[in-house]
């Protein structure tokens, strides 16, 4: 796919639009102006909604704030370019401030809160004196349609560029990871709050310019036209009608809905709002996924390109020849030096102490099995080490760094990789993208998107997912998802790998392959490994020692042979009636 064709095509469309005011009627120009504004609004909503997955019902508030800031500045004889700058600055500041409380929320609660912001801004505009109350702001009469129109073309050009940029950059991928699973995104090295805050500010900035232009062109704004609920959801409906998260989604949605709206105004004197409501309702009922994702559009050879998902726009750098090696540094192991030290680590949920005063040391190059009955605190210990939970008390020292108060992405970047017992892939991204996510978020600028996707193929080959590279993660079966978990954890370039029950549910042959992988990772790449597993026969093949947890405390620590004959361990697993020296637990199990 050639880049320049897109630039040429986009440039030609914008140039054609630029010719309209000189040849077309004022009516056409006004209609096109409205469509340009709508596109900027719908598309900028979709950066937060479609990319980051946050349904921001207050997007129109940013439009309104921009309109008010612009018009009030203009009324005070501020030069016009400065008026735009003020509009953007004020709105971005508001977006920055509200991002702190808003992004504490997620899902429905985020939608709740953003919806409440809209009537609040309307009320503020009504009640304050400087906003002109219910009368709104009236600018001196001035015919600026052409000027506003040309600036709108520029705005649309920038919006399109920003959209393409989001599709093809690491920042855009960070948002896609956030949309799918915030915790997994953090584990993959993404700092989520700044990313969310940034995209909200970006989206608010574009909305504010759209609002400023509209206010300038109409030379009049009042609270209802810029904050009213019926108008506020229009851009959202446009983005959804086309297809949220698709490059062409907002474009198609805007064209269809604007023309429909125009038809409505011209042909129907009454019930316009009701008909429009009906349209929203039908879009919501029949195509919340978007028109462009329907089989009719995708199956057609002429329109098929409109429905392409984001992953079709990125190309991977050709990978190194497949030698079966992993693109990981080969760390020289210095035996006997501690990689991880936990001292008096305690984690409690309310009164339930899940990890109770645990102290342990894991040395470089060790493979340690972590066993214990269900609920004994194994996964909670992993969660503390990978900073999913902040420990209640005690210390975790990893390669000399005290992890107290560290964020999850920091732990990941320091070299702690982990898998989840119940796989948490980024469901709507491809296998390659899942694996590339930690690779591109290492914090060094050189890890480009294309390179990361190229490297991802080698990780996929290592865990046996080569033929599923371009499939979405949610189409994998459980074993493949577990393989993907391992690949993604390895892509974090870990010094310490926390493996949580990857082998359960595998066939004996698959278990053997997996055990070989674990051994290789230590022998060839110097990765230290803690492996939580119930299958003792699998552990027996590879671990140097096992640690046994019971009710949050360590009850045994040593070579597997010794531990399985330990009286306390036996009583935990088999009950106290088990005679000493009987069969080790797990021998019969597999």
């Amino acid at each position, binding site marked *: 796919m050639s880049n320049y064709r897109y630039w040429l095509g986009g440039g030609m469309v914008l140039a054609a639009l630029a010719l309209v005011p000189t040849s077309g009627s004022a009516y056409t120009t006004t209609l096109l102006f409205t469509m340009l504004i709508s596109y900027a609004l719908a598309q900028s909503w979709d950066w937060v*909604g479609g990319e980051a*997955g946050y*349904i921001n*019902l207050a997007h129109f508030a940013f439009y309104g704030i921009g309109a008010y800031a612009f018009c009030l500045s203009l009324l005070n004889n501020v030069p016009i370019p400065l008026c735009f700058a003020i509009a953007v600055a004020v709105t971005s500041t508001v977006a920055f401030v509200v991002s702190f*409380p808003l992004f*504490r*929320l*997620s*899902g*429905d*609660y985020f*939608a*709740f*809160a953003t*919806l*409440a*912001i809209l*009537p*609040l801004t309307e*009320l*503020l505009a*009504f*009640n304050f004196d400087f906003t002109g109350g219910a009368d709104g702001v009236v600018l001196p009469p001035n015919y600026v349609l052409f000027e506003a129109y040309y600036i709108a073309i520029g705005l649309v050009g920038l919006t399109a560029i920003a959209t393409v940029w989001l599709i093809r950059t690491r920042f855009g991928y960070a948002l896609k990871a956030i*949309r799918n699973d915030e915790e997994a995104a953090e584990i993959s090295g993404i700092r989520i709050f700044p990313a969310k805050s940034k995209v909200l500010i970006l989206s608010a900035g574009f909305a504010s310019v759209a609002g400023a232009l509209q206010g300038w062109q109409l030379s009049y704004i009042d609270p209802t036209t810029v904050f009213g*609920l*019926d108008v506020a*959801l229009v851009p*959202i*409906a446009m983005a*959804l009608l086309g297809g*949220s998260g698709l490059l062409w989604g907002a474009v198609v949605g805007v064209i269809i809905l604007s023309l429909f709206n125009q038809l409505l105004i011209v042909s129907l004197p*009454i*019930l*316009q*709002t*009701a008909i*429009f*409501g*009906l*349209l*929203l*309702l*039908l*879009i*919501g*009922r029949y195509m*919340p*996924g978007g028109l462009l994702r329907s089989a009719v559009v995708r199956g057609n050879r002429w329109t098929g390109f409109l429905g392409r998902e984001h992953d079709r726009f990125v190309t991977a750098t050709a990978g190194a020849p497949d030698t079966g090696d992993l693109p990981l540094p080969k760390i020289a192991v210095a035996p006997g030096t501690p990689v991880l030290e936990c001292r008096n680590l305690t984690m409690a949920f309310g009164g339930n102490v899940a990890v109770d005063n645990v102290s342990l040391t894991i040395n470089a190059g060790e493979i340690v099995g972590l066993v214990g009955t269900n609920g004994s605190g194994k996964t909670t210990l992993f969660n503390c080490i990978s900073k999913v939970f902040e420990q209640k008390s005690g210390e975790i020292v990893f390669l000399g760094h005290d992890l107290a108060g560290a964020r999850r992405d920091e732990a990941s970047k320091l070299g702690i990789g982990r898998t989840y017992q119940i796989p948490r892939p980024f469901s709507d991204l491809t296998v390659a993208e899942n694996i590339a996510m930690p690779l591109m978020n290492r914090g060094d600028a050189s890890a480009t998107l294309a390179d990361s996707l190229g490297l991802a193929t080698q990780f996929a080959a290592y865990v046996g997912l080569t033929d599923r590279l371009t499939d979405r993660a949610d189409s994998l079966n459980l074993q493949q998802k577990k393989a993907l978990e391992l690949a993604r954890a390895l892509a974090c370039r870990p010094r310490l790998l926390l493996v949580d029950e990857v082998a359960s549910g595998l066939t004996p042959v698959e278990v053997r392959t997996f055990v070989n992988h674990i051994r290789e990772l230590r022998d060839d790449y110097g990765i230290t490994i803690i492996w939580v597993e119930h299958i003792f026969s699998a552990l027996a093949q590879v671990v140097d020692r096992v640690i046994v947890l019971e009710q949050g405390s360590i009850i045994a620590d040593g070579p597997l042979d010794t531990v399985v004959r330990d009286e306390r361990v036996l009583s935990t697993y088999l009950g106290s009636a088990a005679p000493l020296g009987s069969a080790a637990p797990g021998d019969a199990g597999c």
Partner: protein
Amino acid sequence: MDASIIIQIALGGILIGGLYALVAFGLSLIYGVARILNFSHGTLLAVGGVAASGIFAATAWNPLLIMLLLVPVLAVFGYVFYDKLLQPLTKRNHFEYTVGSVLVTVGALLILSDVAAWIAGPAPRNIPLRFDAIEIGNVILSTTQAWILGGIVVFTIALHFYIRKSWFGRAMRAVTQDHAGATICGVKADRVHALTFAFGSGIVGIAAVLYAMLFPVDPYIGFSLTVKAFTIIILGGIGNLIGALMAGIFLGLAEGFTSFFWATQWAPAISIVLLLVILVIFPQGFGRRKTT
């Protein structure tokens, strides 16, 4: 300042708060069971209130009779609305389900209010029923208000016990807590969803008549009521009716005193600011684990 004025304002606040709570009950049950933000919920009250006052103007029936007429109509509407428009969305992924239900319910809001304004006109109207005034010192309470106040309290308690004790109430609570678990135990979850919508919408019918007896209603007041109802369920706990009544009365009092001591035009901001503050302090929802 005269204490009787304070009492008078407090009575007004409790009354309107009780009505808010009635609106919130339905929304609370619906959100708890179906996890749908029904933005058209308050609009049902607006449209129901307009219809009730229209019927009263034409026939002069007893408001209780109008209520008996309105409740089943709204309940059937709620059932069909969920069954035909929202239930099919449950088969979609989470994002599409959420945005789809937002668009469907907002679309319904716009249709309902616009059609009502077209038929009945946008002007505010009410049920102008004359009752005797009860004077206690300087505090004046009309018998209407007294009846409504008593009615709200009795209704809340009855509803509370209905939801605790009846089969349908148990089914609703089961589905609220664990959809899949309830289905395994033989509860037809889809049907419970639709019935909850019917039930919640029916309650709005009661609130609509009471509201129109006290305050003017127009087709466009619905959305601000929905926001208030959201505030109440976040404050009182989802599915917690007694909590919702308390929260509703608190909100009514806060609005009443804001109007009196500060400025009338800022009273509508109370619920919104309260909603935002509670959400920010308790991102997981206030009193979330409490259920009736």
